[in-house]
């Protein structure tokens, strides 16, 4: 388990965190700065502030996949989960699944609370106010409530609308668990594994599974609060009570997890705010490209789908599943061994069954790397026949949740693009890719690498990324 503040130090140590002083921001809203850094595939940003908590953006997102880069969109998250940032994407997916509901856990461990300093008011936190916002905004929060059966976590976001009042949105499933217990704790700056768990439980509609029955309990030390258990290393804990279950809350801001399950507004009264001595909390430029909440939702969904499809047929033909934040979660990409003719149809349609986020699926060959979105974005057009391999369902499917079209409930078609080779084709039909490995014999490759390396000492692989 890596506490949030330690995680930021790790990013800094990797030269992947840029620190901005408050006076540098002038009057530019932090969400605009955060969004521009993400658009530019720049570093995560820490906002050092004299008044209020420090902020951090881009910490759960990362560089986009539209260019070949050393780091991947999920590399930061991997670091936050205690993995090698350069490790495999599948290891990230499997680690995420391990945080969720588990058959048996060792039970939670407990530690002392890092947040020991009482903050006068929630306003004193100085949460960021976005360019389009009327009030200071809370994003990337983790709600915690407790019942007799245990503690439940879920994502929460909203606004501070008064001196001690929040308007928030959280999964309806969490609100339903309150059942007379009107206390909710909001944890900000939790360990990445904890926030990831909250997102995973939301996108899989497992909010009603207690944390004590999830893998995260084995990994993240906890501490009780008035709401429920929260990670002991939490930067800021806001203990609240529900003031209104049906507040008049007109904001149309939605964090990305809300495309996966029903959410509900709540009005909360703040009872107590505690923080660490030098608190730092993450925020997401919600609604802007590549926002952190988008990336968290995409990776959580990919982990779920990867797990489900590979546990469905008794074998594991699927190499990886990806919901690129670059496509705002409206497209699902899957790399697979096409086991037999028609398998691609079966796979696409089972993915449609398991997620309502997207209407469009791209199927690519098993040898396509998840780090090579560029190849996916080429192969869909050159490998897939424009009429035979763009396969539309009949027009009776419900519209997916993420796209903007057909929000009136009308049915329509789904689409999968088969950019994998047809298993019925003879080998001689399969056009070999132009790669360094296929285009040159070993002796030429070695001579070329040597020649290139002599002029580029820093590039140990001689520019041959297939070897890396």
């Amino acid at each position, binding site marked *: 388990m890596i506490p949030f503040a330690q995680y930021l130090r790790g990013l800094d140590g990797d030269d992947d965190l*840029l620190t*901005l002083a408050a006076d*540098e*921001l002038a009057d*530019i*809203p932090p969400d605009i700065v955060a*969004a*521009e*850094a993400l*658009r*530019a*595939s*720049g*570093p995560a940003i820490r906002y050092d502030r004299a008044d209020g908590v420090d902020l951090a953006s881009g910490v759960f997102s990362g560089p986009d996949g*539209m*260019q*070949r880069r050393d780091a991947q969109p999920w590399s930061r998250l991997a670091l936050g989960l205690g993995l090698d940032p350069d490790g495999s994407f599948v290891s990230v997916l499997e680690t995420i699944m391990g945080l969720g509901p588990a058959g048996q856990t060792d039970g939670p461990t407990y530690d002392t609370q890092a947040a020991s300093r009482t903050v006068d008011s929630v306003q004193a936190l100085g949460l960021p106010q976005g*360019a389009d916002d009327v009030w200071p905004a809370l994003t990337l929060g983790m709600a915690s409530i407790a019942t007799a059966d245990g503690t439940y976590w879920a994502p929460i976001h909203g606004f501070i609308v008064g001196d001690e009042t929040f308007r928030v949105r959280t999964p309806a499933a969490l609100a339903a668990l309150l059942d007379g217990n009107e206390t909710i704790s909001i944890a900000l700056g939790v360990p990445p594994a904890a926030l990831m768990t909250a997102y995973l439980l939301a996108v899989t509609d497992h909010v009603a599974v207690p944390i004590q029955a999830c893998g995260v309990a084995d990994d993240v030390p906890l501490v009780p609060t008035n709401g429920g258990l929260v990670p002991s290393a939490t930067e800021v804990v806001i203990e609240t009570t529900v003031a209104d279950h049906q507040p008049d809350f007109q904001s149309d801001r939605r964090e990305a997890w809300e495309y996966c399950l029903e959410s509900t507004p709540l009005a909360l009264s703040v009872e107590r705010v505690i923080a660490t001595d030098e608190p730092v909390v993450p925020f997401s430029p919600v609604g802007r*490209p590549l926002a952190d909440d988008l990336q968290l939702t995409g990776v959580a969904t990919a982990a779920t789908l990867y797990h489900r499809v590979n546990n469905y047929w008794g074998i594991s033909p699927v190499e990886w599943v990806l919901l690129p934040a*670059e*496509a*705002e979660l409206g497209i699902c990409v899957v790399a697979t061994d096409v086991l037999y003719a028609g398998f691609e149809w079966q796979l696409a349609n089972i993915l449609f069954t398991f997620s309502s986020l997207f209407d*469009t699926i791209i199927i690519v060959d098993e040898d396509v790397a998840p780090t090579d979105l*560029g*190849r996916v*974005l*080429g192969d869909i*057009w*050159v490998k897939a*026949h*424009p*009429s035979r391999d*763009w396969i*539309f369902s009949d027009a009776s499917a419900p519209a997916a949740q*993420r*796209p*903007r*079209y*057909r929000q009136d409930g009308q049915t*329509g*078609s789904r*689409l999968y693009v088969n950019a994998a080779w047809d298993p019925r*084709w003879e080998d001689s*039909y399969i056009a070999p890719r*132009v790669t*360094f490995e*296929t*285009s*040159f*014999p070993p002796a*030429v490759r070695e*001579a*070329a690498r040597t*020649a*290139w390396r002599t*002029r*580029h000492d820093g*590039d140990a692989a001689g520019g*041959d*990324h297939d070897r890396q």
Partner: protein
Amino acid sequence: MAADSFRDYLQLLVADDALVSFDEPVSWDLEASAITMLANRTDGEVPLFESVGATDSDAALVGDPYRGPRSRPWDRFAQSFGLSAGLSGAAYYDAIIDRLRSPCEPRLLEPERAPCKDVVHTGADVDLLSFPWPYVHRSDGGRYSNLHTIVAPDPETEWGRWSSHRMMIHDDALASLLFLAGEQVPNRYYYEYEPRGEPMPVAAVVGAEPAVQCSTEMWIPTGRSEAAFAGGLKDRPVDLVACETNDLSVPATAELVIEGHVLPNERLDEGPFGDYFGYMNGPRRSMPVFAVDAITHRAEPRVPFCVEGTGVGYGQNSSSTLQTAAAGPDATLGLQAAGFDVDAAVPWRFTSRTVWVIAMDRSYPGVLHELANFVFTTWGMLHIDFFVFVDSTVDAHDPRAVLTAIALNADPDTDFHQFGVERMPKVPLNIYQTPDEKGSADVGTSKAKTAKAYIDATSDRPLEDDAETESLRARAQQLLVDAGVSPEPFELLEQRQYGGGDRR
């Protein structure tokens, strides 16, 4: 510094630290291509192979010289034409379109003033194999010249027609040309010269100046000449010179000019070749024969070549860059001239000939169909399979923004439109047809027909005016640059300089 010759252009690369010389012998037999592929994969410097092994020639090879930087592929062409480096895609397109609106007729030089006549070989003195044509991929059918301009006669223009067709070398005086019916020069050969039993004079111009190479990639209106548009691009006339053995005129500063004629009713093997799709394509087929009559060249000619197949996905090479930097602005202007209210027509970065992105507003019902129909039946007939239409507020140069538009706006039920299913012609270079479907039709198109499609990824909602946000965004971008983030990705900052910032 503007570039009036290929050598000027190489100097420009030197000044930018974007060229790396190899003095030691490097073989034309895959080795030069392998090193170039590494350069392309790493966005590295353009390799110049000064000493090409296994030839007696004093010629040098240059690997993918027109490949642009991944973040802004058009940047080096901009500098070649005297524009600023660091322009956003939209600003570059605007500047190029402005230039193309003012074509400039070429100037004809006396032969003694033409650098491409430094050395002249005619008749028995011609030896095509004395030049280091590269063997590019080990599964290719032979050695190729594939980064040149084919000059052919055109009764409509004084300066002939310029186009690009790869050429496979067969012996000291013969090559085969990939002529695909549907393109202008091949059509003239297949449907005019060959039926008359008449050889078609042509010249292959190797190592032409950047403006020439760009206009070669353009689809120029009937009756106009690429030469005049090349002059427009660089804002002064292109120098031409008469050929030695036919009536054609060729760019005078070229490194190498191969004069000859395409024989009627003769064919030689051509292909397979690893082409722009990023895959080896075949099968080997029969293509028209180019018989060489003369070769003229500069002293120590620099012979450019393209490692095709590396300009897909994340990669860039000369041909993908030329699509983005030359074909795109030309198509934008062409569509505007045809009456379509197009903001930008931009090749899709990841496979630049197969898919184009068109940013425009839907000015009337059916306009997208009309535009797609227009292009699919004209210049986009053979190579382009897909159009993606996005709102004019979407930056068509930003593939992430385009991908988002597809994901969120394109309804599989109503916004994917297939054209002429299994009725459209197709180049046989594609990889989604079987060899049987491609066949070996005489004029070079596939035997089996295919389909085309367009995707309407425009929004159904009224667009918001976000001028205020854009101002804030620009300030945020400047803040990040001041804090050390590289300025390269920031489209709202004008005149960015290379190398600024120390992060990414």
